[in-house]
Structures are given as C-alpha cells and as structure tokens.
C-alpha cells in the first residue's frame, strides 16, 4: 500500500498562516449588515460545461459562496433531488479532476469557492494532493458531510498546511460535547443542519435551527451557517436573522431539473430559472437583518 509506505506530506511543508478565506467574506458581509448566502450545485451537472455556467450564474446573481458538490455514487446525506442530479453528472462524465476548473470559475467571478464532498472521493484522490490543487485553484474550504473531526487527522493536517477552511456539520441531535469537538476542529464556519435528515426542500422549518446555532456558538464556534431544507426567500430571511449564513441546495438544483425530477432541463431554460430563483433568495437574505 503506497499510502502507508511513505509519509504523504513528504518534505514537510510548514503550517500555512493564510487567514481563513471565509472569515474575510463574513467580515465583509458584517459591514454590509447581512448574512452570507451560500448556494449549492453539483459539479458536472448536467454536464461539466453547463455546470460552470451555472456556477457563474449563481455568483453573478448574488451568491457569496458557492458550495461545489462532488457527485458520488452513494450520497447518504442527500435527498432525491441531489441524488438525481449527482447521477446525471456521473452519467455525463463528471470527474474530480475537473472540479478545480469550477473552483477557478467561482473565484474569477468573485465568489468564495467551497467544495462539498463525501470523504472517499478526497481520500482516493489523495488528501494532500487535493489540498494542494484546491489551494492552487483559489479554493476556500471543504465541507465534509461524512467526515467527523475524530476521523479527520489527515485532513486537519493538510488543511493547516494549505490554509484551507474545514467545515464540519452539526445536527439538532448533537450533544454539547459533540458541538465542542466540532467547534474546536472547525475552521471558517460550522454547518448546522436545520433538522434531522437528508438534504431537500421543506415547506416549513422548525425553530430548532435557531437553538442549534445558539448552542453551537456557546460551544465555541465563531461562525455558524444553516442549511438543509431552506428553499424560499421567506425561509432564507428567517434563518438569516440569526445565522451567519444561509445555505441553499436542493431548491437551486431543482431549477435545472424537469418535472419528472430525473432529467435535466435544456441549458437556457435551466439557467434562466436558476437565475430567477437565486434573485428571489438573494432578496430574502438581504432583508434578513
């Protein structure tokens, strides 16, 4: 096994003291008096080229940070919408090697590029190699839905060396000790799941995310953003009133899918619907505080 034969870091690179990229974004938005709007789309959906246009559309229409999803064959934290989109992307030749182009696209458009990935994809690509390529592309941080801090030794090390943010998740069911573990290991912000369950749109949000944000801050987290289930301007405004950022995924992905939910819409129609939905949500976030 090559990964046990040599130390992945090889010639040790020092700790990068590059300041947290998302911290700079939050400070800027504090001055503007509003929370961050973070939009999710899978890379390669519906195909690599159109996905780049979609990322650019998000930023041009006011998304602050883009959560670039890496499609995975077994996404256990995702509901039907994102599962379908991931499958379409995989069928259309998505490859992790191309994701750094998406990172560059977001950065060039003026957005803060985040990647969301199930851990096996990063592990398989090589954690150090991923961190290096991600940093070189202008990446800000990585969201890891199935990597808890207890298992994240290699990622903590690599992200320290490359000045990348580590975004771990917490859920309403998380005990206070767990919130502390996450807050201590996180860099940039903590991703608070608004409810128990997988990604997807919801008509109503319970009051528990507000409590979770509060508890997570008490546990030592600097910035807490809320995702999972946010799909309307009204919900975005409500969440944005207490969270540092509002994360929207399925509701955006949805715009690029047809009524069956299994096929992508044609490019022009999809992108225009995406732009309209983004505008709607941006307005919600802008009026949050």
């Amino acid at each position, binding site marked *: 096994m090559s990964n046990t034969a040599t*130390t992945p870091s090889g010639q040790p690179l020092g700790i990068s003291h590059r300041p947290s990229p998302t911290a700079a974004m939050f400070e800027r938005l504090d001055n503007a008096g509003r929370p961050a709007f973070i939009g999710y789309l899978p890379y390669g959906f519906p195909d690599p080229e159109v996905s780049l246009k979609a990322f650019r559309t998000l930023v041009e229409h006011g998304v602050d940070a883009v959560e670039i999803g890496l499609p*995975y064959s077994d996404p256990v934290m995702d509901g039907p919408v994102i599962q379908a989109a991931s499958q379409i992307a995989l069928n259309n030749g998505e490859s992790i090697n191309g994701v750094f182009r998406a990172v560059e696209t977001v950065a060039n458009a003026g957005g803060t590029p985040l990647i969301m990935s199930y*851990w096996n*994809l990063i592990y398989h690509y090589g954690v150090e190699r991923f961190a290096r390529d991600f940093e070189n592309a202008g990446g800000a941080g990585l969201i890891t839905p199935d990597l808890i801090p207890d298992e994240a030794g290699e990622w903590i090390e690599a992200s320290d060396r490359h000045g990348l943010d580590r975004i771990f998740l917490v859920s309403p069911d998380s005990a206070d000790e767990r919130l502390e573990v996450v807050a201590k290991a996180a860099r940039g912000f903590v991703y608070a799941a608004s409810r128990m369950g997988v990604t997807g749109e919801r008509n109503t949000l319970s009051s528990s995310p507000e409590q979770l944000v509060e508890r997570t801050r008490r546990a030592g987290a600097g910035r807490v953003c809320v995702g999972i289930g946010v799909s309307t301007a009204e919900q975005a405004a409500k969440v944005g009133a207490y969270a540092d950022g509002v994360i929207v995924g399925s509701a955006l992905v949805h715009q690029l899918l047809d009524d069956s939910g299994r096929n992508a819409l044609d490019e022009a129609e999809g992108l225009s619907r995406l732009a309209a939905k983004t505008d709607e949500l941006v307005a919600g976030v802008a009026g949050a505080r």
Partner: protein
Amino acid sequence: MSVLDDLVAGAVEDAAAREKVTPLEEVKEAAVAAPAPIDAIRWLKRADGIPVIAEIKRASPSKGHLSDIPDPAALAREYERGGASAISVLTEGRRFLGSLDDFDQVREAVRIPVLRKDFIVTDYQVWEARAHGADLVLLIVAALDDAKLKHLLDLAHDLGMTVLVETHTREEIERARRAGARVIGINARNLKDLRVDVNRYAELAADLPEDVVKVAESGVFGAVEVEDYGRAGADAVLVGEGVATADDHALAVERLVKAGKRVKASETTPLSTHQGPYWGQFGGRYVPEALITALDELERVYTEAKADPEFTRELVTLNQRYVGRPSPLTEAPRFAARIAEKVGITPRVFLKREDLNHTGAHKINNALGQALLVKRMGKTRVIAETGAGQHGVATATVCAMLGLKCRIYMGQIDARRQALNVARMRMLGAEVVEVTLGDKILKDAINEALRDWVTNVKDTHYLLGTVAGPHPFPEMVRDFQKVIGEEAKQQLRDWYGIDHPDAVCACVGGGSNAIGVMNAFLDDERVNLYGYEAGGNGPESGRHAIRFAPGTGQLGMFQGAKSYLLETDEGQTLDTYSISAGLDYASVGPEHAWLKDIGRVNYSWATDEEAMNAFRDLSQTEGIIPAIESSHAVAGAYKAAADLKAKGYEHPVMIINISGRGDKDMATAGKWFGYLTDEQSKALEVTGAHGDTVA
C-alpha cells in the same frame, strides 16, 4: 566541511567560551547539586500510546527561520498541557538560535522530562546539561567515533540521564548498540530528496531488540506521520515544526497524542477480544455527525448489556428455545471422500449447521441480539437492509416476537427476484420498501436505511446485518455471531474427541458468518483459517465481488468504515456481481481487512461455477443443501485442502461453516443444472422463487 562538522565545530567553540566563564569543576558542582533527573525511559515507551517529544526550535539550517518563540516557557507549558511526554530544547545558538537560557526557562516551567538537544562532543557539554537540570541529552553517532560515543554515553548514564542516540544508517545503529545505547533515534530522511520514508524507517528499526526504545526523529508533522511511524513500530516520536508553528500548540500536541493512542488501541491482542473502533488501520466511524449521538448511545447500551448477566441469560435462553441453538456439528464423511479423490489427502470434514437455525441462516443470531438492545434503549422502531432476504426475514422475525415496528429496505432488483421473501417479511408484519435509486441492490438499500436513520434516529434503531458499517457494529455483530465458533470448538471436543481443527472455512460477503465461526480460533495458531469471497465470473472478468485479491479492492471509506472496497479510479463504488446476492457487496468488514493485512486469515475466492458444483457435491454426498453463499465455503474447502496438503497435512480436521440452507436457491440451482424446463423456470421467476441470502 560538512554541515554537521560545521555545527559541531561551532558548538565546541561556544562551549569553550562558556567554560572560560564557568570552569568544569564549577559545572560539576552544579550538576551534583541539581535536582535528580527523571527516568525518561519510562516516559518514552508505553503500551497504550506513542509518547510525543515536542521540540522548541526557532530555526534550522535546512528550513531557515521557523518561529520566533519569544517565550519558550509558555510554549513548553502548552506542549505539556497537550500531553507531550518530553520537551526537546535546541540549545545551539548559531544556526538554531537556541540557548541554555531557553533551556532553563523550560526546565523551570514543566514537570515532564526535558531533553537538551545540541551538538554534544565533550564532557563539559554533558556535565553542563545535567547542571541545567536536563533529564535527557542528544548524542549524534555521525559526530562521534566509537570510543568517544561510548565515553559520553557512559558519562551521561552515570549522571542518571537518558541519552537519545541519533542514527541515520544501519551501520550507525549498530555502533550505537555496541556503545550501549538504550534509546535510539532514527532519522529516516532520504538524503537525496529529503523525503521521509517510513519503509526505510521500518527497515532500519527492524533488527532492534525489544528493550531499546525506538524514537522516530524525522519528518513528523502531524497525526498522519505519528500513525505511519506507530504502525512501523516506533515507540515514540519527536516533532518540531508541526506543533511549534501551529496556532494552538496544545491542541496540535493533543492531536498527535490521540493518534498514537489510536494506533496502539487498534493493534491490541488477543485478536478474539479486540475492540473497535479500529482494527489496525481499518474501521472507524465515517458517518454524518447526525448519527454520532445514536452510535454513542448504542455503544454505551451495548457495553452495559454485556456486563449484565440478565441480558446474557435472556439471549442464551432465546437462542436455545427460539432459535434452536446449539446448531449441530455434523461430520461429512462422504463429502470428505470427495475431497480426498480430488486433492489427494484424507481429511475429516465437519459442517457447522447454521442452516438449521430458525429462519434458516446465521443471521438470526445477530438480529436477536440487537433486537434485545433495542428494547433496552427504549426505541420502538427497527429498520434494516437486506440483499435478498435472509437478514430481512431474521429482523422481521425478531421484531414480530418482540413487538417492534419494522421496516426493511430492499433494492428493487432484489425485491423482484425475491417476491416470496418479500411476502414472508410482510407476513411477519414488516413493511418492505423497494429502493429504486442507484443500482437498486444491497448497497442502495443500505444507503436508504442510513438516510432513514439520519432522519428518525431518536426512536429508530438501524439493525445492521453484518460486521461492517461504523463502530460499534463490527464489534457488536462479531460478539453476537461468535457463538458459532464457540459451539463448534466445544462440539468437536465433546462429540468427536478432537482437540482442535486444522482448518476452518467460511464464505465472506460482509463477513459476519466468517467472523462468527473464526473468532474462537483466531488466537490458536494451529488453526488455519480460510475465507472465500464471491468470485462471480472470475477476477479478470470484472464481474465479481472479490475485494482482497491483487488488482481488485482498494482502501476506501464506504458506508461508515474504512476497509477494502471495489471502486473506480475516481473513488466511485463499482457494481459487483455474484450468483449469490448475499455475497454481492462492494466492501467487506474492517476486521477482515485487518486479518488479511496481518496475514491471520487466508482469503481467496470461489467462482459461480465452483460454488454451484460444490452446491451439488454437498447435496448429493451428504443430503444437505447449502445456501449458494455457503457453497462458496464448500467450494473453498477443496482449495483449503490443497493448501493444507502443500503444508504437509495428511489427515487434517476441517470445519466448514454452512451459514444457511439452500431451499431458497432451488430455482437458481434448477435453472443452472438444467433440472427445470425453460417454462418451469419462467413460471418460478414470475412468482419470484429465485432466491439467495445475505452472508
């Protein structure tokens, strides 16, 4: 002049200058008056961790300026708080920008051993170290000839100090040993490209005796390197930049200490009682944070239950009166004769009859155990995955008995093939959900069960069917299945007067029946253990579920655990194939991955054809129809016999685990062997009679 010569010359010159101010006699007096040194050896080797020597270093010739360190004492205190076992202080002033003043500040600040790291080649420097309260000093073999090395080593030992003797090559290690070194530091940096090579470290350290403390000295930056060196046999590690330049020094050290503990815990023996979360480098909990609270609760409740005689009594009673345990150990002389014909040795073969359990397979052992835990946790709803039926049926069965709400997830393809099993589960009161996502097979059923669990974790238990998934499942399912091997061992003695088997054969999908039958024999080196994966159309065909053969599985994280995994070069899960849906899984339990890596179990595979031939052989020689899954173990018995023959056995005693019965497989078998007309086969397909189980 080499860099080292240069550094030594400078250090000698500086020491001479200090000696002018403070003559040797004065230093000796101070050394005698200094508080007694701490016996650092005991701090540098421990059974439950990898001690961390954290270094205070401002600069180095190779990397230049590293860190200002205005307050060495404060930094040392943070290291100590993080769990460091010793502090190393660079006292060289020219290139490393250290001083004895730094050393004094550190010595004053901490209670753990402190190492003076300098280019020590004179008596004066050794006395000086002791006078400043050093517990450890560094001697570099490359800077000293044999006589000088021995002299300084003896002097330091006489003064009660521990000596870290730094080496780079095999030759230097031998010189250090001859001089009487007790703590040897190995610098495994490849001098060509300065990369640190853990293999080279392992090679260099290989011949060192147990009583020498081995310190990995180079290239430790973080948890990854601690783990690599720990697995390569290092007792302790020395780390500099990775902790000195971190934002939170205590946290950085703490992470290393935790990594060391984890490595040690992952390799404990005896094998049969090894506990999770780690099995060597495998296992863990690669799941969403949302499940951690539930997994913690499960672990806690399970630990309590294990210690509760009432829980054990209830499980044993139900095993007897409900499941029908113990299952017999049946001798199979006519099948043994078939092996003798084919292989040319004459074994005695015994079949462990899990096929005779209630519901027809070993799955009920685990389902029952976990269902009792569900009661204990006060949860009311159970979910489970099933590949083709057996675990789903076992779960539905125990839920019916205990009055628990039950939902079974099943891939749509499997559910269609298994309409009768679906009906069976519904008859038992379970809700069966067909999964139409992904590939619509076992792994997709597990994904959907995990999504359900993430959503409903408060009142729901996920009754996982095999020794895979996140901790504590691999350990817990092992514990519920190990009764198989314990009974077999006892029955072999009591019924047949045989002390121990020479070989145990089992099929391996996720691996629960194999772990179950092998666990009792894991620590008995006399017993050869054989696991057989589903070979499908063979390893080169690309249509199989072989995870362990070269060129098949790779390391990866899948459905909660790190293990071997069939995946694409992008890390996406590959489709698998086997005639037995129960073995048709892309990954394998982490304990098996560990047992493979440490060489305790021989893993191989049986193809569809080999398994089906064995299915017929056992049916016709013994009147026992095994499940197609178990037929892989029966087919494996021929291969195991050949291996035993090569090892010199003439009359080996072999146990084959018959994990389930084959009635459910009759339609598949009838079709395979041409016992059914096309019309009959089609009719059976329509009624969904084609069947298989989950191993």
